[in-house]
């Protein structure tokens, strides 16, 4: 009974976007030696997916979505530590590494993409802004993502997208990941020219492209 209450509490904390509440519930899950995978799958995931649906239907707004994603991230950290300690494994839709390219400090668009992807069940590693080609390469080796997403808002930094793709080829990593590019300075023809796998003109299309490339339903 307590178990169900805790899982409901995790879900509710994500929906309300209150990190402290979610972390406290996740810590109780660990303390009571409940199944962390179950807590993740039945608590956090339905919570964030409900928020994602609310956003898509116009009932919720970006601040709600972003705070819920932050809440999920905080609680997931507690549960994931337990998952890897117990050696169990949770199902994954796919893993995405995201970042804004070197020389560009624009953060918001990429953050919205990250948030929407996590609300659709993806594991998202957000590298941040001003990410050098070497940092992308290192992240691909370390995280082994299914997709890397790169953003450039400035025209003068758009060339960085091509540089990262060339580096991936040089390092024999290009076949291991799908590459999606987007941001204000990126056109679909430029994406084709640098041989990206996909182009996301905005956050929603970026998510759709990710799902398409990984053959994820819905």
């Amino acid at each position, binding site marked *: 009974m307590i178990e169900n209450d805790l899982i409901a509490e995790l879900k509710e904390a994500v929906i309300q976007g209150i990190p402290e509440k979610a972390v406290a519930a996740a810590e109780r899950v660990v303390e009571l030696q409940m199944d962390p995978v179950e807590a993740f799958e039945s608590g956090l995931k339905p919570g964030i997916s409900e928020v994602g649906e609310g956003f898509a239907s116009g009932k919720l707004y970006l601040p709600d979505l972003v705070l819920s994603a932050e809440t999920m991230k905080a609680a997931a950290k507690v549960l994931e530590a337990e998952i890897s300690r117990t050696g169990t494994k949770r199902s994954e839709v796919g893993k995405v590494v995201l970042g804004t390219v070197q020389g560009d400090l624009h953060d918001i668009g990429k953050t919205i993409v990250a948030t929407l992807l996590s609300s659709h069940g993806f594991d998202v590693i957000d590298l941040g802004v001003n990410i050098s080609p070497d940092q992308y390469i290192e992240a691909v080796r370390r995280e082994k993502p299914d997709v890397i997403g790169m953003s450039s808002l400035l*025209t003068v930094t758009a060339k960085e997208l091509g540089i990262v793709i060339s580096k991936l080829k040089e390092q024999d990593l290009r076949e291991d990941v799908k590459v999606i590019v987007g941001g204000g300075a990126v056109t679909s023809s430029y994406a084709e020219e640098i041989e990206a796998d996909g182009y996301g003109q*905005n*956050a929603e299309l970026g998510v759709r492209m990710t799902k398409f490339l990984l053959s994820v339903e819905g």
Partner: protein
Amino acid sequence: MALEGFRCKNPYEILSADEIEKIHVGSLEVLEETGISVADRRSRQILEDGGCQVDHETERVKFPPDLVQWAIDQCPDRFTLRARNPELSLDLGGDLVYFASFPGFTWLDPETQTRREASVDDCAMLVRLCDALPMVHTLCQPVAHLGDKPPEVELEWVHAIELRNTDKTIMGTAFGGSSKWLVKMVEVCDQQTLGGICIASPLVIPADQAQGILDYAESGNPQLILSGPSKGATGPATMAGTLVLQNVEILGGTVLAQLANPGCGVMYMGYATPMDMRFGTMASGSAEVGIMAVATAQLARYYGMPSGVFFPMTDAKTPDPQAVYEKHLQTFLCATAGVNYIMPLGGLDNEGTHSPVQMVIDNEICRMVGKVLEGIQVDEERLAIDLIKEVGPVPGNYLKTEHTRQHWQEEYLIPEVGVREEFNTWVMSGSKGVVERATEIARQLMDTHQPNPLPKEAEVELQKILVAAEAEKIVQ
């Protein structure tokens, strides 16, 4: 001698003196306690030598209030932006109001209404339209991206195209090190540029922008320091908080400019825009943008600096009613608030698209708003007391008086795109709407207008600078 702008004699205000003081005091606190991250080493050194507390490891620079006040005191309250044709120079500051063109990433083809990447030829054509339209007092580059030039040097190319196709003044850039080359270009063309510096909110001066501040200050070109927090995203969700952040960022950049060259011209420029919480887009056509513009003008006056805004803007994708009502509201607010440098002409879709058709419509909006600023001239001749007595009641009328023939033109504004004829005449002349009429005007000007050419010697030097920029910037 300078270009005649409009004059805003009694600026509309939105903040009380006490509220401005609160924004100022709060800004000094943030500058002193949190500071700004400055990504350029040489700039940090200049700031440290000038009295800032600098951590080169974290790149954080904290500004003592006395130094900030010193920098504000160094700023001239007006300065000249010198054109190669002295009649086109701008006298920036005081009660003068000028209008400028607005850039896009792409441009909107007038006949097909499709977005296109600009080529060198397209860009030249768009600059010629800016040259032709009288309400474009000064230019910001109509397009910021060229499809047929390497991205490393596209801004250098854009500026060269501007210098070749207009003798009006132009705004500079600092992205990707472009300021270094532009100051050389304007020098050989015997003119100045208004250097454009973009602070990255919150609280970062990127390396190329810091370098741009130094390039423009040290070369004697005036500059605008532009801060554009997105309310709710890269700035607080409240307008007051966003104005504090914008103020902090502009003042921080101003300190660097004044340390590099005390007394250099700096324009206080706002670009604060709310983020739309449904789409994550910039709500650039919103009323809040206009409201914050009024406050921006007040803050600039408080500091004794010329003011500018990087809008009016719209989120509309085509020249349509939304484009017109959003831009008109903002243009009206900016002008009546006495913003010295306003950018209404040609922008669509936030900064996404530059539209020649919208340019022509905006030219008309600017004429109307300028007319508002001109106000009403009241003197004996214009009060027309004797005339009213003379004409008396019906069947007397004024159309047949010499007074009407003498004065009507100075008081009337004949629209170029707006429809005034009665219905049947309008139908008989093809039932053309505003967009159709503006398209015809834009096309005709783009195809036929001839700007004053750049002197031959300047052209040769300009070409050499482009070649040198390509040699240095393009990694083979």
